[in-house]
């Protein structure tokens, strides 16, 4: 049977498969949205509007995004192991296109999550109007870094026995730098301070993680 196997076709097929699976099962999105909405509602009831506390607002925004998304982002590979479909996947495509497809899905997942969470956050928390260009730039780069890190960690821990404990241990050093930069940049854009350094840092961090991931993925499933 003639085939024109390409990494692009495989990654695209994986992305479509992930979207269809999420659409059918609502495995991650419902719980992520539930967490985000309940957290924001509870905090807004308890603390009220915090328009003048941009430092707290910036931290809260990224904490909500991180915790709402993290379990689902890292779970894209774990689901394959727990559903025993990893063998099917390995016989279908190479490890790198599989991981790239899942990374693209995680980016899309974060985008949809933020589409709901961020406007709700701005309204419920009484946040000052952001500088939209910078704000969206920080969100985009922060999300790219978060998705890349979570995909890498998910891929590495998926086949391990103690993946729950490993997930926390491996995630922490990868997530702290990106969270610090994202929070700092979000606060700075509200304060009117320059955010160039943080944006560069986030971009460099994402690229470095992506490069490391692409080097690692091909060796993921070598028993």
């Amino acid at each position, binding site marked *: 049977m003639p085939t024109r*196997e390409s990494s692009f076709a*495989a990654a695209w097929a994986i992305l479509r498969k992930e979207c269809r699976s999420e659409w059918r099962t609502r495995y991650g999105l419902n719980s992520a949205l539930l967490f985000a909405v309940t957290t924001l509602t509870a905090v807004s009831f308890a603390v009220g509007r915090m328009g003048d506390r941009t430092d707290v607002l910036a931290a809260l925004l990224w904490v909500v995004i991180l915790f709402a998304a993290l379990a689902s982002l890292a779970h894209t590979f774990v689901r394959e192991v727990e*559903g025993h479909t990893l063998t099917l996947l*390995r*016989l279908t495509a190479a490890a790198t296109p599989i991981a790239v497809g899942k990374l693209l899905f995680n980016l899309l997942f974060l985008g949809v999550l933020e589409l709901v969470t961020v406007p709700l956050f701005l309204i419920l928390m009484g946040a000052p109007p952001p500088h939209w260009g910078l704000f969206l730039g920080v969100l985009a780069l922060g999300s790219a870094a978060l998705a890349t890190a979570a995909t890498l960690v998910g891929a590495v821990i998926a086949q391990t026995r103690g993946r729950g404990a490993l997930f926390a241990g491996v995630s922490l050093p990868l997530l702290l730098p990106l969270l610090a930069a994202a929070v700092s940049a979000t606060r700075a854009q509200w304060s009117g301070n320059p955010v160039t350094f943080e944006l560069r840092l986030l971009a460099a961090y994402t690229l470095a993680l992506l490069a490391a991931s692409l080097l690692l993925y091909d060796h993921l499933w070598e028993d």
Partner: protein
Amino acid sequence: MAAIRIEARAVAHRFAPGRGLQPVTFVHDGAGCVAVLGTNGAGKSTLLRMIAGLLRPTSGVLEIRVDGADVPMPARRRVVGYASPELAFYDEFTVGENLAFVADARGMDGPAAAVRDALDRVGLLERIDDRVAALSSGMKQRLRLAFALLHRPPLLLLDEPGSHLDDVGRAVTEAIVAEHRRTGLVLLATNEPRERELADSRIELRGGLGHPA
């Protein structure tokens, strides 16, 4: 017809001391059907997983050549059709969607026709729109066979192909083996006497339960 050759030189895989595949050496050249035999735990499935490129031998050399060209481990999935009880599908997708995903990811020409053809060969075409979660064990086994046949590979690796199948399903399997062995190679890991008879040569594995290495 692709010329296929498999050569194993003292190939072994050790999961734990005394567990796994004991060193095995064999050469098979050309089309046909080979039975991989051994007691439970002898390493039949392990050997098939290594040939499929899913598992790396802990020692020894395993070479697969198609039309004279060496097929390295990462490329084996292109020349191998693999059906095994461990192979699971996405329950939330239909039978057709599962195979269409595989065909798309592999970049196959005419994926829809290939999916229908593979399902037709295993007698599962009428269930193409059913969710996998709704299939019986026997139908899932037929789907595994369809997955193995989808890209028309020169090498078929069938691990306990008759498991969960009724008489009609077994007849389908036998027909697939009979057809494929004329142009390609079938490796059949089995303990079933009826399936053993399909083979024209055997690889006997040592080790496993009741058969110390």
